[in-house]
């Protein structure tokens, strides 16, 4: 289990995280939601060890993460950031093979090749296996990067806005894949996501953040309600519940029309 106790993070004078204490339930999909600048990504980067906290402690399975050697940490926690401008000439297979680096340090064994095959098959990328990354569409590229992270075979997956700039089909494909990773393989997935409807329909647990602090958190049904979301985003919400899940309408909720 990943837990934070009294974590602070400041960039210069700017306080980004302010006394955050929270636990992430294992074996579940947890979405971090909240307005821009709430500190969601910073929180994720702290867990990924891409940044160090100014104060406070993060623990993985009861052990302070700073005391775990980084090469061992990479066997337990895998991180996927938004894939930046990428001008490397790599095939999908070569990219996915990088996911085995924590284990093989570059010399792939039979077990590594099997893990690569499994990750590629899991996301149905067989047809793109030998395609070059820079010739793929944004959605396909994101799938390839996700395959690399899956090949890392870690208990924890951290994803920073994995749906950014994706069309609806690829966004759904990615979220379904994360759901299956959790349900079929028992992995813990923590992601930052902006689309409240994806968060509401695909995660088990939601952590809502506002101004560097946890605004509210809990199981989806508990967090996704009109009052909480209105406070969080300063927007009116109308939540339509059906058997399949929730649809959060913030485009033209009937409540705000009454106000006008």
């Amino acid at each position, binding site marked *: 289990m990943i837990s934070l106790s009294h974590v602070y993070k400041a960039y210069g004078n700017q306080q980004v995280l302010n006394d955050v204490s929270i636990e992430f339930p294992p074996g579940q999909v947890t979405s971090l939601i909240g307005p821009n600048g709430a500190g969601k990504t910073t929180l994720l980067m702290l867990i990924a060890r891409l940044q160090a906290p100014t104060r406070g402690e993060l623990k993985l399975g009861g052990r302070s993460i700073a005391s775990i050697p980084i*090469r061992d940490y990479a066997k337990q926690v895998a991180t996927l950031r938004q894939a930046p401008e990428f001008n490397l*000439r790599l095939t999908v297979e070569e990219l996915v093979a*990088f996911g085995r680096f924590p284990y093989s340090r*570059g010399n792939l064994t039979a077990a590594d090749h099997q893990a690569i095959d499994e990750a590629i098959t899991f996301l149905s990328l067989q047809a793109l296996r030998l395609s070059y990354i820079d010739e793929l569409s944004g959605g396909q590229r994101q799938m390839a990067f996700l395959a690399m992270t899956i090949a890392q075979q870690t208990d924890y997956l951290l994803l920073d806005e994995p749906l950014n700039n994706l069309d609806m089909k690829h966004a759904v494909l990615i979220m379904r894949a994360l759901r299956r990773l959790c349900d079929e393989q028992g992995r813990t997935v923590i992601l930052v996501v902006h689309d409240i409807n994806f968060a509401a329909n695909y995660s088990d647990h939601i952590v809502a953040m506002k101004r560097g602090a946890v605004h509210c958190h809990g199981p989806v049904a508990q967090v996704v309600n009109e009052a909480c979301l209105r406070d969080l985003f300063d927007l009116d919400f109308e939540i339509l519940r059906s058997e399949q899940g929730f649809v959060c309408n913030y485009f033209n909720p009937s409540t705000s029309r009454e106000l006008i």
Partner: protein
Amino acid sequence: MSRLLARYGVWLLVLALALGFLLLGSGLDFAYVIPKRLTRLAAIGIAGVCIAYASVIFQTIAGNRILTPAIMGYEAIYLLFQALLILLLGTQSLVLLGRHGNVLLSILLMLGYSWLIHRWLFRNGRNNVYMLLLLGLVLSMVMATFTQFIQLKISPGEFSILQGFNYASFNKAQPAQVIYSGLLVALVCLLVQRTLPLLDVLSLGRDQAISLGVDYLRSVSLQLALIAVLVAVSTSLVGPTAFMGVFVANITYALARTNRHRVTLPMASAIAIALLIIAQYLVEQLFNYNTSVSILINLVCGVYFLTLMVRTRGSA
């Protein structure tokens, strides 16, 4: 198929050029001409490997294809050091240190320099490569100005010695210098050989590298230290070659069509060596020693650098 051809073709080209350089117009004089040429050829080989490795590894760390170690002020500090030696000790310094003492001292100094830059910038756990590059650029301008100032203070005789450092050439390479430079570079290459997969991971960028279990700070400082040694050796052999690294690295990426360092490093070395052999041959046979390899290389590669700048600006 075409990729294999490119991979081995460059080495065939190097072999042909090397043989041509050794034998053309030598009169098969194995007593004097050919041993002399062999020494120059060895110096060219060493310098080529240095320039290629330093540039490709540096571009991997910086995540940028228009930069070379020269931008970080590595060459500038070497030249400033030479100027300072002449100013403080006069021509005595040549006798005092000898040529080998000078080179070794320069390497130590540049290691210290790269450690300092790295240390100072990474001290808060912030590690911004762009900040590092900006600092290097400003520092190299400052150092170049100091060097010019010193040149005004020294006597004409001392100035001509300093010019010899600024425009080092293969013609002056001594067998002893070639041997210990070669050993040093072989050692560095051996170290790099062991970290080839790590370099591939570093090319994915800082965040992805850390996420894959790389001790990023340590790896980058090790690679920067290796680059410092390589640049010291190459600058003492050919003088400053600011633009050559950009040329060599980019031609390599285009030909190799992969970013695997297992492929790019040897290929870049071959291209650098071929380029240096051609330049040296032109200097000897066509220009009759009236120009230096450094000037020729910077002329050709500088033009390429400009076109690269214009082209990437158009596409960005």
